[in-house]
């Protein structure tokens, strides 16, 4: 079987292409109502127009700014609070209930509140993306430190290492691994925060465009925007994956001479 021997990436692309071709064919045959389900060619045309007309870029820029800044601030806050809570029991007792509550609810319900507090500009989107990311990262750091490998701690202690050495050699690398393990989820959360924030109230951004497309019953524009957001997030996932592989290269068992 030629198809079976080809790589999984090839098989996946083939499946996607087949789906698009089927969709297009069904539309051309008139079996799909273009009002609800415009053909891929029409969606592609909308995307081209958006890009060529220059209309897309400020919106994409606004969303990316809110998401990436929210990601950075959320990571910083999450890591700082996670470390502090793990090292200071008093702070853990104060923070944990709040964080557990924030973790239990769908945090996007805070969006209207942020709009009231911070207005319809960038700040409310930033705040939503930040809190989505910060809570996730707080728990990965907090639990990461609590579940750090005891044998490593004991090893460093028997070699004579104190608290400073333990933090540098054991806790920080261990937490880095935990955070990187959740990094892709954090990227997704940051975009969720930015887009939902725009969806609720804004004057620009991909979420704003989506809201506009929905209110005008423009299915082609809606699908085009969904595809654009997906593509953008996938590109970021790929970058995150590279960063992860680079920083966690110690996890890969490399080839080489083996034996006692």
């Amino acid at each position, binding site marked *: 079987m030629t198809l079976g021997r080809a790589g999984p990436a090839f098989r996946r692309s083939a499946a996607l292409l087949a789906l698009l071709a089927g969709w297009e064919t069904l539309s051309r045959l008139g079996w799909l109502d273009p009002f609800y389900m415009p053909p891929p060619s029409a969606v592609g045309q909308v995307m081209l127009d958006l890009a060529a007309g220059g209309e897309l870029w400020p919106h994409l820029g606004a969303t990316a700014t809110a998401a990436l800044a929210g990601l950075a601030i959320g990571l910083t806050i999450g890591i700082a609070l996670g470390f502090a809570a793990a090292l200071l029991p008093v702070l853990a007792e104060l923070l944990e209930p709040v964080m557990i509550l924030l973790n239990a609810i769908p945090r996007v319900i805070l969006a209207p509140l942020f709009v009231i507090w911070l207005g319809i500009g960038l700040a409310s989107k930033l705040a939503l993306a930040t809190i989505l990311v910060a809570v996730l990262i707080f728990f990965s750091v907090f639990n990461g430190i609590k579940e750090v490998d005891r044998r490593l701690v004991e*090893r*460093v*202690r*028997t070699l*004579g*290492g104190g608290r400073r050495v333990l933090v540098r050699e054991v806790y920080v*690398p261990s937490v880095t691994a935990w955070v990187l393990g959740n990094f892709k989820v954090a990227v997704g959360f940051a975009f969720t925060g930015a887009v939902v924030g725009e969806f609720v109230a804004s004057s620009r951004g991909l979420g704003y465009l989506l809201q506009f497309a929905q209110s005008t019953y423009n299915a082609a524009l809606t699908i085009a925007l969904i595809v654009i957001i997906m593509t953008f997030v996938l590109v970021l996932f790929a970058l995150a994956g590279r960063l992860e592989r680079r920083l966690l290269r110690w*996890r890969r068992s490399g080839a*080489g001479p083996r034996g*006692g």
Partner: protein
Amino acid sequence: MPSTAGPGRPAAPARPAVPETLLRVRGLSVGFGGPPIIDGIDLDVRAGQFTSLIGPSGSGKTSILRVVTGLLEPLRGTVELGVAPPDVGFLFQDDALLPWRTARQNVALGLRIRDVPPADADARADHWLSRLGLAGYGDRFPAQLSGGQRKRVAIAQVLALRPRLLLMDEPFAALDAIVRTRITQELLDWVEREHLTVLLVTHDLEEAIGASDNVAVLGHGPRAAMRARRAVDIPRPRDVLEARQHPAFGPLLRTLWNDLTEEEPPSPAAAGEAGR
């Protein structure tokens, strides 16, 4: 690198006629909430001697070493070290290397903790890696090494600190027989050449006899106590495999076996695996 205990080594010269005691344990009791699993343990490790502590699994052997390392608080009893804490080296069964540090960084870690400048520490780490047959492996991460290679890195990490007293807890238990015999021999060669003082905790009688000058026997729990202490009358330097052919080996093995198994307490199961 001075390869023998020569003038370059401050610890070894002029060994006194009556060897000093590098580790003195008195009346040590250890428990985990319930009754003590070991009770009233006395143990001496004399300078230049290779002492083995044998006992069944779960008898609390490991707990004794954990008290010595300061990782465990005893119920009662004292531990006196005849050397400064930085001169004690530890090699345990589940020693983990830092997975995010290379072999070189792992070996250099103890030196860096002792404020050796980074370049110097790296050079000494490379030296010890090549001594243990791992020349050229300095940039590998632990995940890229075999179990035997990782154990050699752990040994290099400890020996690079030039300890005067080496405490080991079944350090090679996880290795296969061939690798284990080879590494034991290498370590024994080093110990004999440097007149290193060693306390080895093990449940393997043959390993204990093959390597040691004397063997202390810990009884069954609960409330395990010291049973006997036997000298090993096999000349050095030793070959781990040939030592087993020595006429003294068989009878001593029998004696130790009897020491270990006589007067079985009624319910040894009560002690459980609390030793870990």
